[in-house]
């Protein structure tokens, strides 16, 4: 381990300890039930965390499930919406990236659709498909579509002419051209888009689940707030953060595998 690295870790730890100490000082002592009137401190949250991690998959009916089940429900929705959105975005992005005219014709609409909060679509989805679970998946779809689409189109449009010339000389079929030249050449840009997308999907799912209720980490946060179980709320917030980091790290590894230098 280098000296710099050791210092980085030392400072990180110091910041964490300082933060927890200040938090403990301003927090009110928790009652025996764990339901404090003020903000619960880190020790109270820690006790709750230990309880929740010890038994993450219990199921005592609709309003009382373990945090593991809630996270799995959210990740399941995320997977469905995200995979569908990514496939659609890559397909459309490659099409746009290969055709400058189509790209310019469609781009204004993408620019208008991109800044819309995915949650704004929720009423429309609820009204049209009348299923809150599917509506939530569609919200995830909308939240993870645009970054991948924009990055794929840009990545494909900026593939070096030389590579396409080689593909043309070799008379590769469109499928081989796609798989052996276009996708690998644009892969770094595409994965960068996928990485942004999974972040915004994970952000959107908490809010979507607060709205639809039922299961999921977002609903869990809202439900515990209604129970005034703030230690659970805080622990869930931390869990959301950790899952987000793991999702990003997974795509980070993929991005390193697909990177190339010229």
């Amino acid at each position, binding site marked *: 381990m280098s000296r710099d690295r050791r210092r980085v870790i030392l400072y990180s730890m110091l910041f964490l300890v300082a933060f927890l100490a200040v938090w403990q000082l301003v927090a009110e002592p928790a009652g025996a039930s764990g339901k404090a009137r003020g903000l619960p401190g880190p020790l109270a949250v820690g006790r709750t965390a230990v309880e929740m991690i010890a038994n993450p998959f219990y199921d005592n009916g609709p309003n009382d499930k373990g945090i593991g089940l809630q996270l799995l429900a959210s990740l399941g929705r995320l997977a469905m919406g995200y995979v569908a959105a990514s496939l659609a975005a890559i397909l459309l992005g490659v099409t746009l990236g290969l055709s400058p005219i189509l790209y310019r014709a469609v781009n204004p609409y993408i620019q208008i659709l991109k800044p819309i909060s995915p949650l704004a679509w929720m009423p429309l989805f609820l009204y049209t498909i009348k299923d809150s679970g599917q509506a939530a998946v569609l919200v995830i779809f909308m939240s993870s579509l645009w970054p991948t689409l924009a990055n794929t189109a840009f990545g494909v449009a900026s593939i070096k002419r030389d590579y396409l010339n080689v593909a043309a000389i070799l008379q590769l079929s469109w499928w081989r051209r796609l798989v052996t030249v276009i996708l690998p050449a644009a892969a770094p840009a595409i994965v960068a888009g996928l990485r942004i997308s999974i972040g915004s999907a994970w952000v959107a799912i908490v809010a979507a689940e607060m709205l639809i209720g039922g299961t999921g980490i977002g609903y869990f946060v809202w439900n515990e707030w209604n129970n005034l179980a703030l230690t659970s709320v805080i622990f869930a917030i931390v869990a959301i953060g950790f899952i987000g980091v793991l999702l990003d790290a997974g795509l980070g590894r993929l991005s390193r595998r697909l990177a190339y*230098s010229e």
Partner: protein
Amino acid sequence: MALLEIDHVTKHFPAPDGRGHVCVFREVAFAIAEGEFVTMVGHSGCGKSTLLNIIAGLEAPSTGGVVLDGREVTRPGMDRMVVFQNFSLMPWMTVFENIRLAVRAAQPDWGRKDVAQYVQRYIDMVGLSGAERKRPAALSGGMRQRVGLARAFSTQPKVLLLDEPFAQIDALTRSVIQDELVRMWTASRNTVFMVTHDVDEAILLSDRIALMTSGPEARLAEIVTVKLARPRVRAELIDDPEYLRLRTHIMRFLVERSRDS
């Protein structure tokens, strides 16, 4: 009969200021026989690389046309492989994969094993054994162009198009790879059209050398026949009176005559 015919090809581009056209070269006409090595020499901007791209089918002529084996060239094809100045290897593929991409395209009916064996043969031929699994970024310019040559030769095209293939390679390595090209060409006797501004390279390799005047509106001034017996050895050529005569002739053309039209 000529295998490749450049039939009065003219190329112009839209002028940079948006008004009218700039003519790069006008009415270039010559033919290349099967098995012949023809090189085009001219200053930068005479459009020689553009002409090579037109033969490759990557660009369209403004007027005139290119006929290969009795058929007009309209688009790129496997019968005309290009060796690019900047190598144009796929950077995300290994050496082996780069050549395999071409072999698979040329021999769609071959099984996996046959393809792999054939690819390996060409890797060995250009002295890259051991570097099969390296990516281009890990190779020197000279090694990258060896891959480019192996890729081009491995498809057994009717015509090889070499676009200043050694321009980006350091001088010491260049002569080694030129010798390698001579060896490969001697074995295969491919028809080759090469573009270069290196006069010694042109004389060493070519049967005939086409001299272009300077652009814009470049023309094909003359075609010189190289009457030097093969195999040509670099060290012996230097003292050969015919070599010296040719070299002086071409150099004088490039310095003095390429400007007047």
